[in-house]
């Protein structure tokens, strides 16, 4: 009954192909631009080369931006996950006075334009005498990312039967044992996806970094700066590598989820 009729199937196929094209064609252009020998972007590309990648890998400054981005993203993801884990339990599990208000206030920063949020943070930093730096950027990212991570983990918490914790306690487990043996393992998929999304959001973030990193620079900031002055195909090369990194992180996450599902199905 649910089968799509033939002409409709054709239409669906075309539509899906168009959407994919629409989403991925620009990225393909980026990838192609990074392999162009010419310093300027021309289409079609007259001559392909990989020299810009060699330049990227040889560049000490790009390497330092990469490390800055990575360290910020890892710290943000770790701190956001820890905060979000307990936040999500408060958010989705326990009933307490003010819970509804907490849920709304927590989610509000997600909806603020990031540039405004970044500006607010910059003003706040200067008010309390904090010099913008990559450490300040970690804080700035957290303001926006921790609520999102909380939401991601809360979805898993909602699906968690609180009777399982009660059963663990009833069978003699202490609070700590219950957390370690029951709550954490059952929430692991949510925690992992929370961590990954936090990492990727921080890794790719430009507006908050722009206002908060000060003298330190992240990859997205470098890309933006280079586009305004001094474009070379190093920029699309770095862009391609950044995308690739995100894809790898996603793939690792997918692989972890697959392993987890397999273990749960008792095949391992």
């Amino acid at each position, binding site marked *: 009954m649910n089968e799509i009729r033939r002409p409709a199937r054709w239409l669906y196929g075309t539509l899906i192909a168009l959407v994919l094209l629409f989403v991925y064609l620009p990225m393909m252009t980026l990838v192609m631009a990074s392999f162009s020998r010419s310093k300027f972007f021309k289409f079609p590309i007259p001559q392909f080369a990989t020299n810009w990648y060699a330049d990227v890998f040889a560049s000490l400054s790009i390497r330092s931006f990469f490390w800055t981005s990575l360290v910020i993203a890892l710290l943000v993801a770790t701190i956001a996950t820890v905060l979000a884990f307990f936040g999500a339990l408060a958010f989705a599990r326990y009933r307490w006075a003010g819970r509804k208000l907490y849920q709304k206030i927590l989610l509000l920063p997600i909806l603020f334009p990031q540039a405004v949020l970044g500006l607010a943070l910059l003003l706040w930093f200067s008010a309390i005498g904090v010099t913008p730096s990559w450490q300040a950027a970690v804080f700035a990212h957290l303001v926006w990312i921790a609520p999102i991570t909380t939401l991601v983990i809360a979805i898993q918490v909602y699906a968690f039967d609180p*009777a399982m914790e009660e*059963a663990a306690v009833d*069978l003699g487990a202490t609070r700590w*044992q219950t957390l370690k043996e029951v709550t954490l393992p059952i929430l692991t998929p949510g925690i992992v996806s929370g961590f990954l999304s936090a990492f990727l959001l921080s890794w790719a973030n430009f507006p908050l970094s722009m206002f908060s990193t000060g003298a330190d620079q992240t990859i997205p900031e470098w890309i933006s700066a280079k586009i305004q002055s001094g474009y070379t195909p190093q920029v699309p090369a770095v862009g391609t590598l950044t995308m690739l990194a995100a894809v790898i992180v996603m793939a690792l996450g997918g692989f972890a989820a697959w392993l987890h599902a397999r273990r749960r199905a008792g095949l391992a």
Partner: protein
Amino acid sequence: MVTTEAAAQPILQLRAIEKVFDQFAAVDRITLDIQEGEFFTIVGPSGSGKTTMVRMLVGMDKPTRGDILLRGRRINDVPANRRPTCMVFQSLALFPHRTVGQNIEFPLKIRGVDPALRKKRALELLAQLRLPDHYYNKAVTQCSGGERQRVALARALAFDPEILFFDEPLSALDYKLRKVLEKELKDIHRQTGKTFVYITHSLEEAMVMSDRIGVMNRGRFVQVGTPNEIYGSPTTRFVSEFMGEVNILDVTVGPDGTATDDVTGARYLVPASAGAGPCSLVIRPESLRFVAGPGQAQNVVTGTVYNEYLLGSRVQYQIRVGEKQVLLLENLRDQRYEGDLDSPVTAGWDTGDSMIFPKGLLQ
């Protein structure tokens, strides 16, 4: 003499326990003794306070007032993880990230029991609950409803509790499986000799398994007794209705002890227990029978057969008396009514098979 007293001491004693939520007493001053090795079932409709009660007994909630004594020791303030009791939850609360074996071993792992011993015990329990050995490595998420039920029971037995509580664990299962598991549970009770305290909303389920039943309503026990007492001599209309379908006639008992039907004006002989005044006369469908005419039963009514319902080994008839009264009559299948629908019939019952409860009494 001290020894005999100790031996006779109930394993669990409730002393006027009360649980109040916002001035509403979910459990209202209940006093009860549960004996060692007993299968005690608490039956009640939803909202009767039975779940609140069991949560206090296992230590997940504290009574507002009153005392809970385990072998004479007050345990009100002992948290659930320090009590030698455990519960099979309504949702079973199996751990989905663990295998059947790991679920069963959970309480042993918590206690730091050696892995080899744990596995040995888990395999024993699998055998006891008639689950195959290879289920040890099976994911609980892959088990059927009945298997999950057995895993939950095995996990609770691995804890080796002094009292095992059950919070309606069978309610989500289909009828047939429920019937099988009720009997299995009673067999396990016999095998282990442990004290079982079981909660259900089904008196029928309670009848099958229990040594004693406490019928609960509005936070109190309406009647506590053996299944036979509950079935044979319910003390209130509420209990008599709770067992299943019954005929309830509104009657008025006169000073001579006979009752007048408020609807049809017919006169019945009723058990002497009721005083004069408005009463409910309760007659089980199986106590009603077709009779050839007056004189063949102590009380008779005449009406017509409106419909017939086959219930497997038994058969029920809906009898309409006049326009307003409907009675159910139940026979064994081999005693089927041979006449046509809508033809006049006489049905009757003996006074001793009916029950009478004064109205206005707390149900």
